[in-house]
């Protein structure tokens, strides 16, 4: 019993080792602060300063409640063996409460087709420059400091870097400015194989042209159709494989023409909608079913074999008993007609009994 307890304890302890491991392959995109849940990269006792050059720029004037793009340029990255680099758009350098949301800015879309302040890039070159952008929306007029932070690894060392601050002050929206509705959020994902109708809600817009393209592909211009006042739509073709389309709207009205930042919509495999509990239960049911089936078969065959052994044993006991029994004396006139000696050995007693 003690050995089993010891073995179970060791197994449980070993099981926990994987949960505290490093993540050289990244953790996936998400909304993370700069410390990233206490990652090695954010630990001053373990990390080293990244040699990467980081630059953050604002693409156009930021207006309250209107989306705007922030572009980050990264160069001189030393890639880890897994060729992953993590980039953060943050608003503070203390390592906590540094998400754009914490400063009153909302991330509308990111480079990878999500809406996260942390994204991971794949690559392998030491010299290439990477340009990524986030579309964000200010919900405050307070000037905000933005930073670009980088996490990457090389030769078993976690690297960390942070850019200089970029101060962004949002302005009040001028009158008659053709613009997106303040509560408008574009779709950022769609299923593969489906044509997509994109709706755009606007204010003070009289005509709208849409420019869309596959990432790094050629641009295509289409005129958006107005459904009613300040509602427009346009079609995006179905994607045959996972891909990202960038689009932006060029809006015309009484005020000066405005162009929105690039929005991204990612085509993904349709999400699997399945009851997790049902999957786990069915897995357990399958396991138990096979255990029960095999053991029941073994039990059955074992029972049959056991009965067979008992029968053979009984028969041999009965033969032994009969052999031990005294053979009936052969009558004076010899064996009865038609009888053999073997038959007499077994049934002679009965013959004599019947003859009496």
């Amino acid at each position, binding site marked *: 019993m003690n050995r089993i307890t010891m073995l179970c304890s060791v*197994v449980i302890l*070993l*099981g926990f*080792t*994987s*949960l*505290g*491991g*490093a*993540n*050289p*392959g990244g*953790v*996936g995109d998400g909304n993370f602060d700069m410390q990233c849940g206490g990652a090695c990269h954010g630990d001053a006792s373990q990390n080293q300063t990244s040699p990467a050059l980081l630059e953050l720029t604002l693409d156009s004037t930021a207006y309250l409640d209107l989306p705007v793009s922030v572009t980050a340029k990264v160069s001189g990255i030393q890639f880890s063996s897994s060729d992953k680099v993590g980039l953060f758009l943050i608003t503070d350098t203390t390592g906590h409460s540094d998400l754009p949301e914490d400063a009153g800015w909302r991330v509308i879309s990111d480079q990878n087709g999500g809406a996260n302040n942390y994204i991971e890039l794949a690559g392998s070159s030491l010299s290439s420059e990477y340009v990524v952008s986030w579309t964000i929306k200010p919900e405050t007029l307070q000037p905000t400091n933005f930073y670009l932070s980088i996490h990457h690894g090389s030769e078993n060392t976690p690297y960390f870097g942070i850019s200089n601050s970029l101060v962004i002050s949002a302005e009040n929206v001028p009158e008659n400015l053709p613009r997106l509705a303040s509560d408008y959020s574009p779709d950022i994902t769609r299923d593969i194989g489906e044509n997509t109708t994109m709706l755009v809600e606007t204010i003070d817009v009289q005509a709208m042209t849409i420019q869309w393209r596959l990432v790094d592909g050629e641009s295509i211009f289409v005129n958006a159709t107005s459904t009613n006042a300040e509602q427009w739509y346009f079609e995006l073709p179905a994607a045959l494989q996972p891909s990202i389309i960038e689009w932006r709207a060029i809006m015309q009205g009484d005020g000066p023409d405005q162009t929105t930042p690039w929005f991204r919509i990612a085509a993904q*495999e349709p*999400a*699997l909608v*399945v*009851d*997790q509990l*049902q*999957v*786990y*239960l*069915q*897995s*357990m*049911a*399958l*396991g*138990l*079913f*096979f*255990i*029960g*089936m*095999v*053991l*029941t*078969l*073994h*039990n059955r*065959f*074992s*029972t*049959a*074999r*056991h009965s067979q052994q008992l029968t053979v044993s009984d028969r041999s006991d009965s033969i032994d008993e009969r052999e031990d029994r005294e053979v009936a004396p052969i009558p004076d006139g010899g064996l009865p007609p038609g009888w053999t000696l073997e038959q007499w050995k077994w049934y002679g007693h009965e013959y004599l009994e019947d003859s009496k």
Partner: protein
Amino acid sequence: MISSATFHVITTELVVGSFAIAGICFLIKALQIFNFFNTATISQVTDNTGHFALGFGLIATPFAIMSGIASSPGSDVSSPLLVNKMFLSMAGAGLALSVLYARYAIGQQVWASKQSSLTQATAGLGASGMMLMTASLGGKFTRNESLFDIFNLPFDIILLMPMWATVVVLLTGLAATTLAVMGLRNRSAIQH
């Protein structure tokens, strides 16, 4: 300290290697039923090696599952491949457990009759096959390619039973397992 992804590679290699050896041994045991390789030495070696490898693979399996969950980008069952992986691994683990328990409870007599030998060898082969398919699905999920691609298996289809059917199968399995274990234990006690 190693990452959960690397630990997952180590444990899955242990699982796959062990189950592959077990599979070869149970294949030879199955052939012996039809009088191929039917010598006492081969019989004993494959019996011992097959069950030991199966047991070792089964011990390594929970580590592979835990490290796999820790290293995957999400915690949900988000793909048909992952659902099928879970079904196959649990079915394989169930078969492996039953093979080991039968060998423990019945002893070498498990090979005494043709039916019993066939059951044991088939279950052992099934356990190995399902575990190897599970590992193959892992490759399919992460790299979108696998050695088993040549078989063109429909891993993107999920056979999900209704909840009531799942509960029926679960209870049937539980009852059958309990009765069979009790029967085998009683027989074992009588024989000893």
